């Protein structure tokens, strides 16, 4: 039952991770890359940007050159979790009480973080909320996982995306090769977030987008007499099924075409789906690359 869609409602992300990752042993990318780790693999020449602590000082004394120890188990790939926590992400499921897009995004990103931690990758978190960007720098280990989970848990969906300039200035993390997983509803496209993702993709990072929708959005199934307002905009809207379905299809067709064009794989997921299922689809997609 916990593997079902209701799991994403759970506030305890540890519990979500434990249940979703049970039997989901494989990682998100091939981990047999060289990097920092326990088992020594080889030395390589120091390059600017390498951490000083990985420099082998004894070898420096002997050879008068900087060498960096490389280990086999760890990878160089940093996993960046990008969470869109704007007001529109508070959209609730109309069929499952207590479940909304932000909770679902938290659950999926927490699982990805946990997988990254298991396979020794560094992972960080970028939260876009209320016109601000908060970055948790990438690091490895269980403590980092707890930091990230705490950060995820305290994130509330408010406000708008940061503007493009503010977001661009935080893309410094993209120096080393990274895997970037962005969970959003992508209702704004183009948007500062979409521009940042495409830019990262052009910098040859592995960028993946998780498009979160609700079942009601997919079915265009809302009360026809009710009035609606946009949590990120102004004005009143009356429901018209045909208009809604047409506008939605047009928008997401554009989004998909655009992301395909820039080689950013996008997985559309309904938040009523089981998180494990979505995660598996996301990893399978990754495996294809």
């Amino acid at each position, binding site marked *: 039952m916990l593997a079902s869609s209701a799991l994403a409602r759970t506030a305890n992300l540890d519990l979500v991770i434990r249940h979703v990752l049970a039997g989901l042993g494989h990682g998100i990318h091939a981990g047999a890359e060289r990097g920092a780790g326990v088992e020594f693999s080889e030395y390589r020449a120091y390059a600017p940007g390498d951490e000083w602590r990985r420099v082998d000082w004894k070898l420096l004394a002997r050879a008068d050159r900087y060498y960096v120890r490389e280990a086999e188990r760890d990878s160089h790939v940093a996993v960046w979790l990008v969470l869109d926590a704007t*007001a*529109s*992400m*508070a*959209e609730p499921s109309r069929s499952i009480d207590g479940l909304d*897009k932000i909770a679902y995004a938290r659950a999926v990103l927490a699982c990805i973080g946990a997988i990254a931690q298991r396979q020794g990758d560094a992972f960080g978190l970028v939260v876009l909320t209320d016109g601000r960007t908060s970055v948790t720098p990438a690091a490895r280990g269980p403590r980092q996982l707890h930091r990230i989970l705490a950060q995820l848990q305290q994130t509330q969906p408010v406000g708008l995306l940061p503007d493009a300039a503010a977001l661009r200035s935080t893309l410094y993390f993209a120096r080393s090769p990274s895997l970037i997983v962005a969970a959003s*509803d992508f*209702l704004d496209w183009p948007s500062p977030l979409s521009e940042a993702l495409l830019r990262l993709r052009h910098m040859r990072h592995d960028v993946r987008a998780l498009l979160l929708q609700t079942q009601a*959005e997919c079915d265009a199934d*809302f009360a026809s007499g*009710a*009035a*609606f*307002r*946009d*949590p*990120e*905009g102004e*004005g*009143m*809207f*009356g*429901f*018209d099924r045909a*208009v*809604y379905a047409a*506008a*939605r299809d047009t*928008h997401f067709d554009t989004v998909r075409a655009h992301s395909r064009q820039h080689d950013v794989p996008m997985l559309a997921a309904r938040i009523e789906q089981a998180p494990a299922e979505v995660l598996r689809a996301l990893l399978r997609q990754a495996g294809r690359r």
Partner: protein
Amino acid sequence: MNGLWWWALPVVLLPVWWHRQRRRRVEAAPLATARFLPRSAPRQLRAWRWMDVLLLLVRCLLLAALVAWLADPVIAWRGDTVLVVPGGASADKHAIEVPTNDAIGWLRAREAQWKPGARITVVGPQMMAAVQPHLRHQVELKTSTPPVAMQSRHVAIVSDNPAPWRALFGAIDGPVRYVIDPAPSAKTDLIIWGRPATPPLALRAPMWWIVNQAAFPELLQAPLVDGIQSIENEYGRLWTSASWPPQDADAARMLFETWHHQYYAPAPYVAPQQVLAADPSAPLHIQGGALRDKLLMALVALFALERSLAHVRQR
């Protein structure tokens, strides 16, 4: 007429209307994908909310009091009552002292103030009504006759033959005593003039009985009413009759009755003790004004309160 003011009572709804606040917009549910929907005009929600309930209440009361003041309602609030006519006395502390001897007439004008079934007792010399009074309440007359006050009237007989007149006034008994003055004075009520000469101009009296018409030949041209010819001149009212002095008791009584009837108010006749049964079909006279003072005070107090509350709200 005053009762028509009650139709103005719906003005009380005006503050209710003013204090009603319409919520500006329809409660709109947030929907992330609302941007895919056509825009609609903000709809007004027909929700009633109340602002400043205390002020609203005071304003409604103020208007209601104003309408009531204009309508001047009469409320039946008196129960069993004792009415004391001047000259009567009652041990009841709540007895009402009626200003006239006609307590029944006084009561009839205000009868709407008494509750149905209330019994009313009239104490004192209630005067006898000309017709049997019909009231909606039972009225018990506990009348008492006051001692008759003696009155005296001064008569001056200027005649060569005063004996028949003296005999006439001497024969009269009753509450009025006639004093025969030796000569006319300022106190004289009646002068009987039997001389042919015209009296001196300084002599004045309200009533002259002229026995010898030679003194006032113009009297003979005056019309004859009930056997009396009468004129009014600078001396006063002059009467004459060819049959004077009256020759028998009936003629004398007739003369005195005519005189008193025309120039003196009749002495009130005290009604006998009796119980006037309630007559539900009797007309109910409504005399307002009983609550006007209280309503006016309430109006002033409510107005002051309303102004204070409105001032507090504005700050």
